[in-house]
């Protein structure tokens, strides 16, 4: 269970208040107008940004004092998810430990992760020689290897075409479900939110709404979401 307890972010004129609970294993899409603070919200969980007030609890432990790498979080960013000078294998191996030096068992584990995202045979390619979809898969393989209970995605597939994006969202959803990982995904596409078939949070007007069932919310959107969806 991930608890946002009276969290408040302030930056100049910008405010964001979060007060909600995300159950373990939930798959939550996060939507809202641009500039409302969706990425800021993820940065807060990942540890790139500190709130001015409140607590952030994961299974009873306060995450706020922890640096990003020590939080139970793996994150995939909008872009720059892979180091261009490392191979797909080298990038995924960083999920085991930051030095990227692995023993035989760990190497096998990374190879399995790459195979399970469909990158078998492409392990030694560098990002420049992989397609957009394959690059996303390599980042997902690293996420698998990291094996953290919280997965954060910040519009990770926005550069992909609709069909490929649907496929990748499905893949992420399956992988997280298999490991009972909790997924928070920022997206601007209601189709992504519906595909997760979990819950939906709306970030608007300085607040993050509590997660509500995604399909029902999309079928009958509240005012904040309706004006965004148009």
């Amino acid at each position: 269970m991930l608890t946002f307890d009276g969290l408040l972010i302030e930056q100049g004129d910008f405010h964001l208040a979060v007060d909600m609970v995300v159950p373990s294993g939930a798959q939550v899409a996060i939507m809202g107008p641009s500039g409302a603070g969706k990425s800021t919200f993820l940065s807060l969980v990942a540890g790139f940004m500190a709130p001015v007030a409140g607590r952030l609890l994961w299974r009873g432990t306060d995450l706020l004092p922890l640096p990003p790498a020590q939080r139970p979080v793996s994150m995939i960013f909008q872009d720059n998810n892979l180091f261009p000078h490392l191979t797909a294998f080298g990038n995924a191996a960083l999920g085991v430990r930051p030095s990227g030096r692995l023993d035989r068992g760990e190497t096998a584990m990374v190879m399995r992760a790459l195979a399970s995202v469909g990158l078998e045979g492409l392990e030694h390619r560098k990002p420049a020689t992989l397609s957009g979809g394959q690059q996303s898969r390599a980042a997902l393989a690293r996420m698998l290897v990291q094996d953290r209970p919280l997965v954060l995605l910040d519009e990770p597939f926005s550069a992909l075409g609709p069909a490929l994006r649907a496929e990748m969202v499905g893949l992420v959803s399956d992988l997280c479900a298999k490991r009972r990982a909790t997924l928070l995904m920022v997206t601007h596409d209601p189709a992504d939110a519906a595909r997760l078939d979990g819950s939906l949070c709306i970030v608007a007007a300085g607040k993050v709404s509590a997660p509500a069932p995604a399909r029902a919310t999309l079928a009958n959107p509240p005012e904040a979401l309706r004006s965004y969806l148009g």
Partner: protein
Amino acid sequence: MKARAKAAPPVRRDRGLAVWAGGLAAGFILLLTFGSVVAVLSRAEGGLTLGAGDWAAIRFTVLQAALSAALSVGLAVPVARALARRRFAGRAVLVTLMGAPFILPVIVAVLGLVMVFGRAGWVSHLLALFGLAPVNIYGLHGVVIAHVFFNLPLATRLILQGWLAIPAERFRLAATLGMGPGDIARHLGRPMLRATLPGAFMVIFLICTTSFAVALALGGGPRATTVELAIYQAFRFDFDLSRAALLALIQLAISGAAALLALWVAVPQATGAGLDRTVERWDAATPGLRLLDGGLIALAALFLLLPLLAVALRGLPELASLPAPVWAAAWRSLWVAGLSVVLALTLAMAMTLAITRLRHRPALSRGVEVTGYLAVAVSPLVIGTGLFLILFPLVDPVALALPVTALVNAVMALPFALRALVPAAAEVESRFGPLADSLGMTGLNRLRRLTLPRLRRPLGFAAALTGALSMGDLGVIALFADPDGATLPLLLFRYMGSYRMETAAGVALLLLGLSLLIFWCLDRGGRVNADL
């Protein structure tokens, strides 16, 4: 949203080591620059009064720098305009060549200029055909010609960049409005020049105030001595430390003031990127303008290439029969260049890491960066003199001539290394910092697996610049070296001084080849297999 993600993270990562190393490097530079001035001052005896010769040196320094800067910039304006509006085969090569004087050993270019513009040079021969007296390259105009040779290309590149920064749409708009060359000059050219020229003038002025090798080779005498040259003479010939100290302070004041002025007028940055782009120009298609531009470009190219051609033509037959001391000196020079590269990269890397990691403390970060740029204003001869005085009681300075030269050359190259590395490191942090943080890559892991691989290109470029600059340097080594310990540039200067011009040309060609080779190899080393 993205803009807001820049806030300071709640927990500072373990980055102490880099900050300490950078601070140590900055402290070392401060000690070297100001410590050497203090060392010189402390040995100065007697009153600090300026003699007539000192005033003459100050006047000459400012006069030649102002003339050099004005001529370089003034000539660059039409050349840059011509390059901006013409497309021709070899244009890209020419523009690239205009970046080359920077890594050209000064003394090689001086020899080339003597061969073209000297008493027995090509121009004098040409004049003799018409019964005219030969020209003389020694003195004020020689110093200015050499400075224009080095800085006309720099000014041209800076102004060309200004032209190319004007959006192509403006020229299309001008074409639809039927603007002629005069209208374009008034509406597009002049505003750009007003923004570009002061900075270009000041940076060249600054470069010329600290010029030593040109003045050493072409100046001299009471009428053509720069302050730098006067320091050298006071130290080397008279061992008059109080005069050397006084002159060192004057030099510091002149170049410091020039540097502040240059900062104040905002020096344009020569990025070198995209200079091979041309814009379609509809206004300049008349035959007269074509002829004018073609002539200007040809003249500029001749001015830059003839001296090098002269060195190559006369040097080539000599290469096989160079005397043994030349090869020994070449070894010493390579050794000095190698040591300079190692020292400069170590200092620059430590400072770059500290600068990027101290971003949340802008005053400290800026302080480290400014320290690195100090070398622009501090004279290598002052540092050399100071080091001599510090080392004198401890060891025989002559024995340390080469390491000291390597160190001073490294410090002189530091500003250029930092200019290549700091923006690149900041870019790496902004692109990959969050990912590396989320993966827990800190300390050596981060350096080895992220920072160094991502900085390969700028590191290679910085190493290449340092190596070439150090290889061709004729500065501190002239203060220290005994007759048997000369580097290649110093040996070349001595051959020139004893009018062994054939041998000098051979040595110059060798030095030129080695400098370019060092630059090419190191720069290439950073590019090969660098994944973008």
